[in-house]
Structure formats: C-alpha cells, structure tokens
C-alpha cells in the first residue's frame, strides 16, 4: 500500500504543480466563454470549485448548435440567515453566476454568490467589490448559509438510502432468520463492523452501547465516499464542516462515556512520579483534542486529495494535449485515472474503516476499566 501511495502522490504532485502555477497567475482573467473548461487555469479553478460545496446540482454543460452554453442540472433551495432575517429562494436565481456579479434581491436584502459563498451587500452598495489579496468582498458581509447545498442534498440522499436499505434488512428478520437478496449483502457488513471494529476495540462488556453510532458513521462515510466517485460529483466527506461534525461526535461520545479511570489517566496519571504527573497532564489534555482533530483532517484530506487527483488526471487530456497530441494525452489520462479511481474505491472503504475503527478505539480507551 505505502509504495503505491507515494508513487501516486509523486505523479499527482507533478501534474498539479503545472496547473496551480497557471492558476495563481491568471486568476481573474478568465474569459467569459460560458464556463467552457479547456485551459489549464480553468481546469485548476474547476477542480478547486468542485472540491467546494455547491448551491446547485450541476451535472454537465454543453454548447448547442447556436453556440449557446447549456447547463444541465437542477437548482437547490438557498436558505440564508441575513441581517434582515431568514431568506429562501432557489439557487437558479443566481443564473450560474459564481463571481459575485449577479445580485439577487430578496425582500430588501441584496445577495451575491462568490466562490460558492453567499454574501450580503452592505446598505447602499450596488456592486460587490473584492479585495484582491484575500479574495473577500470589501463591501459585503457573510451570512449564515443554511441552504440545502449539494452536500446537504447528498447527506439527505445517503440518509434516506441507509434507512431504506437497513430498515429493509431489519424488516426481513421479522419473517425469516436469514435475509435474502440485497439484505444478504448488507448483513455481513453489519456483522463486520460489530465484530471487527466495535467488539475488539471497546470490549465485550460495553460495545453494545456504541454499535449504533459506529455503524451509522461507518456506512455514512463509506457510502458518501463512494458517491464522491460517481459522476454525480459529491464531495461531502471532503467538506471540513462535515468531517468536523463527525469528529466532534466521536469527541463528545468519548468524553461523556469516559470512566473515572479515563479522567484520572488524563489529569493525574497513576504509577508515575508526581513531577511526571504534572508534566503529563497538559499533554494528555492536548491529546483529548488532537485525536478527534486527526480524525477530522485525515478524512477531509484523503477524500479531497482523492478528488483532486482523479480530476487532475482526467484533465491530462487537456493539459498535455499540446505536447502529446489528443490521442496520447487521452490515453494517459484514461489509464491513469482508471487506476487511481480503483485505488480511490479502496480508499473510500479504508477511510470509513479507519474513522470508525479509531472512533471505537478512542471510545474503548475512555470506557476501559483499569486494574491497578
């Protein structure tokens, strides 16, 4: 696993290096060609844009016979909490504008969308202005964005699918002890999480209390990771807000189920010299936070990196067209992106497994009862 990983990181870095250099130089100069992605800077921007959450569900774009640019997808509801209160409208109101040029009037509030963030124009301002250093608007304020974004849509979709699939599995047991069909495929996965993740890490006595959480999180992350590999282009587990939320749940469960022994080991480590106890306490307290922090960053970074890598490799078709010709660059692109996608399928499972396994481990450490 390791050597393969480093090799693929090297390949990707070299590809990315060329792309991001262009991106930095010509950030603001994109020609208004309706969003055709064919130059290197546009590819970089497109990839970075994809990694972010989106306010509409965009599937693909094409140019029709009249030279008109068509976007295929569907709008999603935008719900924002502005200085004037809650405002809701469909994302189609922005007319696919993501550069802050199109202003939406919503009951006395002027809203713009810039790099998938929604800003409220200050009173009296008629056009949004951006600071070129920070890329933040100078005459507009952030709003609390509670929209049903693409990620929220993905979360809802996965939630419904999970309820249907596992609810169906649960229902099957009423008639028969052995499930049939698709449920037969799900049952071993459930048993796998229970027997390979929850049981060994938490311990025979207490694991039952936490299997519900661990199972939910495992399938939630895994299915979303896999969704991210489909052309639907979800990047939910690559959103830091989502992984932060997941890690926060693990953190809270760990702390609230911590035994007396757990807290004693943090603040007053038994069995060491008192001076060491004083030194160890802040380290242990820091450890309480670094563990879930690592969970958050690991999942976010792995999935985001995976998406960037796959998209960059697909983009080789354009980036190496000049030097290798359309056939050569397409061939390289297809071969590389195919194999990386295969690895990503593995990573999708692996990250779900690691997140759940480490969550179980942290919970297990917290509920463990030591015998001194």
């Amino acid at each position, binding site marked *: 696993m390791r050597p393969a990983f480093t090799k693929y990181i090297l390949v990707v870095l070299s590809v990315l290096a060329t792309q991001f250099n262009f991106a930095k130089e010509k950030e603001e100069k994109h020609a208004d060609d309706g969003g055709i992605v064919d130059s290197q800077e546009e590819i970089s921007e497109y990839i970075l844009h994809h990694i972010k959450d989106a306010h509409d569900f965009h599937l693909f774009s094409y140019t029709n016979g009249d030279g008109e640019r068509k976007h295929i997808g569907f709008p999603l509801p935008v719900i924002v909490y502005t200085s004037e209160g809650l405002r809701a409208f469909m994302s189609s109101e922005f007319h696919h504008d993501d550069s802050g040029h199109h202003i939406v009037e919503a009951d006395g509030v002027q809203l713009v969308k810039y790099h998938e963030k929604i800003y409220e124009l200050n009173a009296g301002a008629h056009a949004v202005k951006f600071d070129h250093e920070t890329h933040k608007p100078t005459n507009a304020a952030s709003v609390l*964005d509670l929209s049903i974004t693409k990620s929220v849509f993905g979360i809802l979709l996965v939630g419904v699918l999970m309820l249907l699939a596992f609810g169906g599995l649960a229902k099957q047991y009423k008639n028969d002890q052995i499930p049939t069909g698709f449920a037969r495929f799900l049952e071993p996965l459930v048993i796998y999480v229970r027997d390979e993740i929850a049981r060994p890490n938490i311990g025979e006595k207490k694991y039952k209390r936490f299997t519900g959480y661990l199972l939910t999180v495992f399938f939630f992350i895994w299915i979303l990771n896999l969704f991210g590999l489909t052309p639907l282009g979800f990047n939910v587990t690559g959103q830091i807000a989502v992984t932060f939320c997941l890690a926060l749940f693990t953190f809270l469960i760990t702390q609230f189920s911590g035994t007396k022994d757990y807290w004693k080991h943090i603040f007053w480590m038994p069995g060491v010299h008192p001076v060491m106890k004083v030194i160890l306490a802040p380290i242990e307290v820091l450890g309480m936070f670094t563990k879930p922090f690592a969970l958050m960053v690991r999942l976010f970074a792995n999935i985001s990196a995976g998406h960037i890598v796959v998209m960059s490799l697909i983009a080789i078709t354009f980036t190496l067209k000049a030097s290798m010709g359309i056939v050569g660059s397409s061939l390289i692109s297809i071969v590389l992106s195919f194999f990386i996608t295969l690895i990503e399928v593995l990573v999708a499972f692996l990250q779900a497994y690691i997140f759940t396994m480490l969550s179980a481990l942290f919970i297990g450490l917290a509920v463990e009862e030591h015998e001194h």
Partner: protein
Amino acid sequence: MDQLLNDFSPGLFIIQTFLLLGLIFLMVKFAWKPIMSAIESREEGIKDALASAEEAKKEMQNITADSEKLLKEARAEREGMLKEAKDIKESMIAEAKEQAEAEGSKMIEKAKLTIEAEKKAALEDIKKQVATLSVAVAEKMLKEELADDKKQQKYIEDSLKDIQLN
C-alpha cells in the same frame, strides 16, 4: 489553514449536526436495534443448537458405552456360568468317584467281613465235625479197649487215680 477556515461552512456544519443526530437516532431505532437483536438471537440459537448437538453426541456415546458395558457384562456372566457349570460338573464327577470309591471299599469291607464270618463258621463246622469224629473215634477206641474186664478195671482204676489226685 486560512484556506481551511475560509472553506469551513458553519451552515453546513449546523445542518450536518442535526442530520447526523437524526440519522443516528432513526438508524438505531429502525435498523440497528432490530438487526442486532435478530442477529444476536440467531447467534444464540446457533450456539444452543451446537451445544445440544454436542450433548446428543455425548449421549450417543454414553449409550454406546452403556451397551458395550452391558455386552461385556453379559459375556462375563456367560463365562461365569460356563465356568460354574464346569466346576459343578467336575465336583459332581469327583463326588461320584469318591462315593463310588467309598461304596466299593464298603462292599469290599462287607465282603471281607462275610468271608471272615464264613471262614469262622466253616472253621467251627470243621471243629465240630472234628470233635464229633474224635468222639466217635474215641468211642470206637474205648469200645475196643474196654472189651475185656481186665482192661475195664484198669481204666477205672486209672480214672479214679486221676480223680483222687485232683
């Protein structure tokens, strides 16, 4: 880090928190709990079935052992009986032999006694006959002796002499 913080969407975080909480709650209620209890009861059932199968196997073994034991016992009994019969036979033969021997010796003894008695009787008879004969001889002799008077006198005198001496 700046980029990360900029990308962090508080709205998405809030929504995700509520959705995840709801999802965990619903999944536990409608999926994990019934699934787990079903799987556990099934595992329990399998365990029980295995245990009872083991028990049945053991019982079977016990039964086989029992029947073997019974067979062994029966065999031993038969052997014992045979031995006993043999012993009885032998002792009977020995007894019979002994009895026969005793009877035989008794008969011999009896025969001996009879022979002895016969012998005695015969001897007595012979003695009697000898006595009779000798008396007869003596009579004849006396008759002869005492045929004349002289001789008769002499005899009387001798006899008297003897009597007197006594």
